[in-house]
């Protein structure tokens, strides 16, 4: 059902005439795009009035006897539901002839029997019902009724725009994006839905403008810029710290009693995870083992060997605390480019593989031999690690349908931004937001092999890892206590750590945002050559 935005032939002009509200900056006959997308024709000016009347209708219907309602049902031919305003008026008149359901000025001005104008009616429609859930997350801060109105509308229009993008209706999407820009101007963009909404609007507009079918390719930042954003994200919120401390605790326990240990880090960055492990190994009863660290990272293009530099700093720290240490850097732009022989694992040592938010990048379209993640999990299993530590975002941003991904990521990232609001340190907060924005952009704009942020929830990872020949290791109570203590040190009170079948999740107000789990490899059964 195509929208007709500028069709002013509307028989309800007598019913919903001049409103007493100040005129909004739109031509008076303009139809609301949002409802047009759902097949209803309502003028933008009349929205509040129609909403109030719908609520009133609901109240009246609840109070009416079933006989009255079934009468209405039989007379359906007299009503034209597309013209929503007059349809509601007619029903109201039918059910309660004493109440005049129309007339100018009977909108937000009159009190009795009408709910106040700050609560819009939710048309029952599956898309809109999802939005109720999303809006629940935004209700944290105090907003004025007008702002609440705009916020809700912002979310509604975002969802409609995403739906239009999924359908391929780029012209409607473009119009909706203009609407969204207007709405963003009217809402507080310093916090809450205003801020995260602006990132989503930006991502959608890039997708619509640039390459609607195939998605855009995100501009790559240099490794140095990536590190800076990552570092500030590390400092502004506890997610990475939680990941590092939990992983270190699990690795420490797995290395108990071992004299030669080898840690393989799938994303070295600046090596912020490893000082704490080195120190814990230095203090362990029985003395420190020989520690080898292999750090995987992107090749640096500017001539600096950043992996080696980080290795040197870690070695300096290890030397100060008397831990025998050896470092090796492996430069690879993608994890599936790494081959096991590059890691030089010796059979006598205990191996730990550490993947902090890296495995999801391998879920993209695979080559002829299958999806990259299965190949990588296979060679990890061949290394026979004592522990494989997996920390991933707890959300499903890898669904095949764009609208599902969009909805889920809107919910997820608004929760994350809420938690970030508590951080006041600058520039950490701004750069952390930039880091998250890049993730949002990747989830929303990109497709195919360019889309690397393919987050999947813990249940999916459990299935995948169990299927690949790994058995779960329970993260002990030490890890849990440490995580809880770490969180009490952060000034915001909304963080929560939960234990979920041996895995730990960190979340904001009972919505888990990041999940840590530990696995060990089941040795492969010896293969009898049957000529496969």
């Amino acid at each position: 059902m195509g929208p007709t935005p500028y069709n002013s032939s509307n028989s309800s002009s007598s019913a919903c005439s001049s409103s007493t509200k100040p005129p909004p900056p739109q031509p008076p006959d303009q139809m609301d795009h949002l409802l047009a997308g759902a097949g209803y024709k309502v003028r933008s000016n009349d929205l509040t009035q129609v909403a109030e009347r719908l609520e009133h209708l609901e109240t009246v219907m609840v109070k009416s006897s079933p006989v009255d309602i079934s009468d209405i049902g039989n007379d359906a031919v007299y009503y034209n539901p597309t013209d929503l305003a007059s349809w509601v008026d007619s029903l109201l008149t039918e059910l309660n002839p004493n109440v005049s359901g129309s007339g100018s000025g009977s909108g937000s001005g009159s009190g009795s029997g009408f709910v106040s104008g700050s609560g819009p009616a939710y048309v029952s429609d599956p898309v809109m019902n999802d939005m109720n859930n999303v809006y629940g997350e935004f209700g944290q801060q105090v907003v004025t009724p007008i702002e609440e109105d705009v916020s809700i509308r912002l979310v509604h229009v975002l969802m409609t725009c995403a739906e239009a993008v999924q359908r391929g209706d780029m012209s409607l999407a473009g119009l909706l994006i203009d609407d969204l820009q207007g709405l963003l101007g009217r809402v507080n963009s310093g916090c809450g839905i205003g801020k995260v909404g602006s990132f989503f609007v930006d991502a959608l507009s890039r997708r619509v403008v640039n390459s609607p079918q195939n998605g855009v390719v995100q501009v790559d930042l240099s490794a140095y810029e990536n590190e800076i954003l990552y570092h500030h994200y590390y400092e502004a919120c506890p997610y990475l710290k939680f990941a590092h401390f939990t992983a270190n605790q699990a690795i420490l326990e797995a290395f108990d009693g071992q004299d030669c240990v080898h840690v393989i880090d799938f994303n070295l960055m600046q090596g912020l995870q490893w000082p704490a492990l080195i120190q814990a190994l230095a203090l362990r009863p029985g003395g420190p083992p020989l520690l080898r660290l292999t750090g995987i990272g992107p090749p640096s293009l500017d001539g600096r060997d950043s992996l080696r530099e980080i290795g040197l700093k870690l070695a300096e720290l290890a030397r100060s605390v008397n831990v025998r240490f050896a470092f090796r850097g492996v430069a690879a732009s993608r994890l599936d480019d790494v081959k096991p022989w590059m890691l030089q694992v010796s059979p006598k040592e205990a191996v730990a593989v550490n993947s902090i938010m890296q495995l999801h990048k391998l879920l993209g379209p695979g080559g002829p031999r299958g999806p990259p993640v299965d190949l990588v999990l296979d060679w990890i299993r061949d290394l026979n690690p004592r522990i494989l530590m997996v920390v991933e975002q707890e959300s499903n941003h890898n669904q095949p349908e764009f609208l599902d991904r969009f909805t889920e990521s809107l919910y997820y990232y608004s929760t994350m931004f809420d938690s970030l609001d508590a951080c006041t340190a600058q520039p950490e907060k701004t750069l952390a937001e930039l880091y998250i924005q890049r993730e949002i952009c990747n989830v929303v704009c990109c497709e195919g092999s360019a889309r690397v942020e393919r987050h999947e929830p813990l249940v999916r990872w459990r299935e995948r890892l169990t299927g690949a020949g790994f058995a779960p290791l329970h993260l002990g109570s030490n890890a849990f206590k440490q995580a809880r203590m770490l969180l009490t040190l952060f000034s915001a009170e909304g963080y929560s750590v939960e234990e979920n079948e041996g895995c730990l999740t960190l979340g904001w107000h009972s919505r888990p945002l990041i999940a840590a789990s530990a696995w060990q490899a089941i040795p492969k059964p010896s293969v009898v050559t049957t000529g496969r």
Partner: protein
Amino acid sequence: MVHILENGEHFRADNREPEPEHEGFGSGFSINDHLDLLIEVLKRLDGRSLGAAACVCRQWCAIARNDSLWEHLCFRHVSPPPVGVRPVVSALGGYRRLYMVCVRPVLSRLKRRRLGGESEVVRRVWNQHEVELSLSLFCVEYYERLLVGGGRVAGDSPSSSLKFLCMPVNV
């Protein structure tokens, strides 16, 4: 009773009690001449008082900067006392820095959570986990200074990874 005062001014051979004004124990006795006593006293102070003591005079400043005093402060309420920690902490910057940068903010944050915002000094016993966490945070902080460059102790302000500890708690 005979009282022989240090500078030999008075000599009493009778049994009367000394009058307190002129012949009290304090005059002529200086704590600065008994540094072992001074250290024993300073060992029992809390962090804030120890810092204040360091401002009294140059000698006290030098003594108060003695790392073993701060070691005592950091871990005197730890049960059981940690073993083998000293070389590690010394390598990472010393106990005084550990206290300023990690222990004091961690303790005050944990205590405020417990008491819900009152700022009363409470003597509490740490447990092993809290000690380990503080040491880990201290190590990360040392490493961050290494990354920035230098690696030497640069004043008492922590590097950025511990800024979150200094942020005010929402009371």
